[in-house]
């Protein structure tokens, strides 16, 4: 029963006042002693791997992308797999910050900041791959329709070009959204900081925020507008990424199922990554009062739901290929399951289909170790999903004469590990210099939770029902 009780945690635990929340969140940034050995280890390892990636990229620029395992017939290899994987991971951040905001879900408040940061860093990792994959990254500006002396515009009929726009829009909107949300917190850091240099830096970044009513009014409308802008992006970006495959007529790629199933997969992988980060970080920085078991439980539930959609996608793929009656489609499924990459397919089914089923049990959802391990399975599974889609289709297309086998090289692995390093490096760098939890939104939440302002302002009213632990939404738990 204790497992179930934890699920009914309040969104803020413990006896907190505005001051304690403020101190706790700001302390991580202002008090340099709050960072312990785990921080140093993660940061260092991330930094080292980032350097490794730098070396790989240098060598790649010098030699060409032939140093990767990509070659006829597998023109897309780990680079595109990693790209899709990273882009997918970013989606959870946008979902949390935009869609949950519009749906007035209060449980987004403590996790949105670092989930958004995660989005940005994941997009930064993702963007590298297609850029380098073009073979001439120094010509990347050709992908934009700028007024040029060649009288050329990019080919707008190509989904790869849609990708360029989808991802650059995504990166920009996410960055602006994230920064906007940071402004009140930066002002708070500016006011609390003792060091004049930090004061100056935070002050400059806070852009003169004084917390005046007019500031708040403008802030709220800007924020809600950006949330509205980001909402379609959650769906569009990965849909467009899936078009890269779905528009081609290769067996295994040419399916209308791809967009929804990619988006679900993206949210799924993203929540796995948020949990992977949240579980250790909340322990290291003692943020258990803000990121409660209830948050973790809900994230696990979202993972379960999207995981089921993804699994349904796999079943559909199998059904479609059989129902199509098309010899190539049927054989493609056969090759996926029993071909040379069969191991990847069954691993994928294990990771994405079977392991997440454990999330049905509240006991497991509250067992942080188990949850953490499941998240790793999910991340691996989502990577394998792209591996299966890309590699099997490319190495087993229509003509047996163009069959092949894809083998990654150390540079493939170096790039992948390098981006993981880059991500870790950026993430832990972020934890140290910026508030990882949305300070003012937490205070606002506390204000509403303690019942003060119950009868003032319609915003508070609208947010009311799902505050605290007494929502109607989780009835299935009782």
């Amino acid at each position, binding site marked *: 029963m204790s497992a179930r009780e934890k699920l009914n945690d309040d969104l803020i635990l413990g006896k907190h006042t505005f001051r304690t929340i403020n101190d706790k969140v700001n302390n991580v940034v202002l008090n340099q002693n709050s960072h312990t050995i785990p921080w140093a280890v993660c940061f260092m390892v991330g930094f080292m791997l980032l350097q490794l990636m730098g070396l790989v990229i240098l060598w790649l620029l010098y030699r*060409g*992308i*032939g140093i990767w395992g990509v070659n*006829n017939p597998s*023109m897309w290899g780990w680079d595109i797999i990693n790209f899709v994987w990273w882009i997918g991971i970013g989606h959870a951040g946008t979902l949390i910050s935009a869609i949950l905001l519009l749906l007035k879900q209060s449980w987004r408040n403590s996790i949105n900041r670092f989930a958004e940061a995660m989005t940005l860093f994941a997009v930064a990792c993702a963007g590298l791959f297609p850029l380098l994959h073009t*073979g001439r990254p120094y010509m990347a500006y050709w992908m934009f329709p700028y007024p040029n002396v060649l009288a050329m515009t990019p080919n707008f009929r190509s989904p790869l070009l849609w990708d360029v726009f989808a991802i650059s829009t995504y990166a920009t909107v996410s960055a602006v959204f994230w920064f906007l949300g940071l402004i009140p917190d930066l002002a708070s850091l500016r006011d609390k900081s003792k060091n004049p240099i930090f004061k100056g830096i935070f002050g400059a970044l806070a852009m003169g925020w004084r917390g005046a009513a007019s500031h708040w009014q403008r802030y709220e409308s800007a924020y809600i507008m950006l949330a509205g802008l980001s909402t379609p992006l959650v769906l569009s970006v990965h849909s467009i990424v899936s078009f890269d495959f779905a528009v081609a007529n290769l067996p295994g790629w040419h399916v209308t199922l791809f967009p929804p199933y990619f988006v679900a997969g993206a949210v799924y992988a993203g929540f796995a990554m948020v949990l992977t980060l949240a579980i250790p970080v909340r322990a290291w920085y003692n943020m258990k009062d803000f990121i409660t078991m209830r948050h973790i439980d809900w994230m696990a539930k979202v993972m379960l739901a999207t995981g089921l959609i993804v699994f349904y996608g796999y079943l559909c793929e199998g059904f479609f290929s059989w129902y199509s009656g098309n010899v190539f489609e049927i054989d493609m499924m056969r090759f996926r399951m029993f071909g040379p990459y069969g191991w990847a397919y069954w691993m994928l089914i294990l990771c994405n289909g079977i392991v997440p089923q454990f999330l049905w049990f509240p006991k497991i959802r509250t067992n942080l170790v188990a949850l953490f391990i499941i998240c790793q399975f999910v991340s691996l599974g989502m990577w394998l999903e792209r591996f299966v889609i890309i590699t099997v289709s490319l190495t087993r297309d*229509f003509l047996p004469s163009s069959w092949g086998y894809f083998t990654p090289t150390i540079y493939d692995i170096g790039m992948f590990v390098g981006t993981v390093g880059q991500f870790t490096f950026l993430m832990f760098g972020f934890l140290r210099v910026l508030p990882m939890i949305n300070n003012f939104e937490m205070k606002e939440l506390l204000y509403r939770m303690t019942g003060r302002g119950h009868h003032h302002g319609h915003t508070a009213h609208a947010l009311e029902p799902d505050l605290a632990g007494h929502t109607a939404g989780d009835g299935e738990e009782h």
Partner: protein
Amino acid sequence: MRRFNFLNYTDHTEEPYAVTMLARNPNVTMRARGVMEKCTYCVQRISAARIEAKKEGRPIKDGEVVSACQQACPTKSITFGDMNDPKSEIAKVKKQPQNYILLEELNTKPRTTYLTRLRNPNPKLGKES
């Protein structure tokens, strides 16, 4: 067949570059790393013939353009020409019943088509050649 220049197969830093270019086919660009390579249907030969024909104010004659692979093929198994001209050699060959399009159902409309091998399924009629 298409191929991507994954590595810098032609060293553009090699000096003198013009000499390297002459050593290959000076009428075709040496494509650098990061550029796609594909059968161009010997566009340099087509262009040469096209310009000559235009200067003389006449259409390109059938058989005036011979692709390099066609020229090199000892068994003359490659025919090249203007598909739009019904009197051309290629149009006649394409009308033969053995003519087929590879993966026609994908509707990619390739111009390169093939002739099937002639077989004799009835051994009584003679030895298969």
